[in-house]
């Protein structure tokens, strides 16, 4: 400690900016975004998600080269604005699925590691309210999700622009028009809503289990289990012909976290979504209904986890 500074100059009160609820929230959010930016895991998970968008693109090339009729006008990836839109959105559907894992891992890590390491004590001991801390972390995770979806969309658009170079007859990027953009933004909104639900899920599990491992592991198990159950349970209901069972399956897997996303993408893709993405299509559920159900899931999870977080004594 020979380099210790002998002059006693503490950061003065004059440097402290105005306080208040909103100011406090903004400061916490800035701190959480700063930590996310400097966290190697953030960049690793973004890399994994973008890699899978590239994987979806390569799969797309393989599919088109084996079924050249797909790029004919009027077909799924035809040489028209709708075809171009489908090329972009289809890459995003796989990105969304991997992103679910990315986002749940990040939510579990951000909430759970701070919980178990005790680093929150430093902040809580400065008079910041527990619910404010959690709200800022949710907001930071949503910003992370937004950045991830924007990066995935840009990558998918860039790769779509290169597609005509690789596949003859593929729709050129110049076909991108207003309705295509609206459709892609709608898909992004569906992805974001879905990821917001996954953030709430991973956070709630991390808080309930008081550990990042529970948040990450539990969240991933739920997401995989949901896919498996979504396939097994309807088959069981078909086999057993039990009306109650079928209603239970409808209740669990129709208006679930994926429902709004199902409604936010082009019908041509939604029709095949169960095959592509594990989402259970159900034309009986309208888009507003799906949105309301998604929001109820998210708000419910956030309320439970925030109440638990606010009541607990951290680091005890």
């Amino acid at each position, binding site marked *: 400690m020979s380099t*210790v500074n002998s002059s*006693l100059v503490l*950061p003065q009160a004059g440097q402290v*900016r105005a306080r208040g609820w909103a100011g406090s929230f903004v400061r916490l959010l800035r701190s959480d975004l*700063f930590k996310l930016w400097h966290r190697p895991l953030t960049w690793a998970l973004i890399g994994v998600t973008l890699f899978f968008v590239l994987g979806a693109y390569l799969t797309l090339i393989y599919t088109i080269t084996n079924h050249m009729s797909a790029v004919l006008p009027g077909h799924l990836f035809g040489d028209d604005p709708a075809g171009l839109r489908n090329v972009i959105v289809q890459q995003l559907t796989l990105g969304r699925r991997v992103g679910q894992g990315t986002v749940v891992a990040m939510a579990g890590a951000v909430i759970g590691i701070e919980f178990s390491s005790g680093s929150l004590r*430093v902040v809580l001991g400065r*008079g910041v309210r527990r619910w404010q801390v959690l709200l800022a972390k949710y907001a930071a995770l949503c910003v992370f999700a937004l950045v991830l979806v924007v990066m995935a969309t840009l990558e998918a658009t860039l790769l779509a622009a290169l597609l005509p170079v690789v596949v003859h007859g593929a729709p050129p990027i110049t076909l991108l028009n207003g309705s295509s953009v609206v459709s892609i933004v709608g898909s992004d909104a569906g992805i974001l809503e879905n990821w917001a639900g996954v953030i709430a899920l991973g956070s709630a599990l991390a808080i309930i289990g008081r550990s990042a491992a529970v948040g990450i592991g539990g969240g991933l198990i739920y997401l995989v289990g949901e896919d498996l159950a979504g396939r097994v349970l309807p088959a069981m209901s078909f086999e057993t012909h039990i009306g109650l069972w079928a209603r239970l399956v409808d209740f669990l897997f129709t208006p679930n976290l994926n429902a709004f996303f199902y409604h936010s993408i082009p019908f041509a893709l939604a029709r095949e979504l169960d095959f592509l993405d594990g989402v259970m299509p159900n034309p009986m559920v309208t888009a507003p209904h799906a949105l309301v159900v998604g929001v109820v899931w998210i708000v419910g999870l956030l309320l439970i986890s925030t109440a638990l977080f606010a009541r607990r004594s951290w680091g005890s």
Partner: protein
Amino acid sequence: MDGNGLVIETKGLTKRYGSRAAVDGLDLEVARGEIFGFLGPNGAGKTTTIRMLLGLLEPDAGEVRILGRQLRRARGEVLPLIGALVEMPAFHPYLSGRDNLRALCRVLGLEDGAADSVLDLVGLGADGRRRYSTYSLGMKQRLGVAAALLGDPRLLILDEPANGLDPIGIIEMRDLLRRLARSGITVFLSSHILGEVSLLCDRVAIIREGRLVLVERVDDLLRRETVFVLDTPDPEAAERVLAGLSYVKRIWREEDRRVMVEAPGVSGNGIVRPLVQASVAVDGLRRREASLEEIFLTTVQEAEVSS
């Protein structure tokens, strides 16, 4: 804010875990600019008390006033004025020491430069850009103190700040805390290094099983508690005789032929005469001020007996 000059004031502070009282009716008063030592054996309730002072734990009964304000009602105004290091320092392992402080600067609404100045203050300026996970225990401890210094605190609450520091680090930490106290910052310090506490603190409190057993100025305490060093060829016989004297508080052996006798307010005659009368040879007797460690042990043992 601290109109009565008290920076910390607790009245009847109590915290129970099930049927066990971790802190039991604790009354404490710490004045502005003081360096106050808070001592007690493991499990005495020190950390629980500190956690209640910081609003990290809700007391079951009693009240805490910090800087003259009731903590329960004014935590938003009071807690930002406290810098604290509770138990082990806990930071993000993937960030550098400097970035950990920069993240905290954002929470407190401070410029990044504040992180650099407190890093320099605790002697971590050169290692600030190293990842926290590579820090030694002593460096982590210094970073914890640096974090506590952010935001111009009026009160520093430090739980074992010398933990993991080498001897030079301990001296430098002592010097820093003294300078902070001279600048008007109150330091509330819990430590197991009693020699350090006696060199640094103005007053000490000792708690045992959540109850306050002693609060006194360190100078007065060391002066009041006198220990005699008795050299004798027959220590067993000397111990037998001295144990029968009502004014002898404690007897222990330091070497084969050296007996330590704690007898407050007694002259050397009060020790030698009974020994001579019992035909116990005395080679020498001298008076020595008790160390804080000895006082601590005696106080804790007495509290054990009385309970």
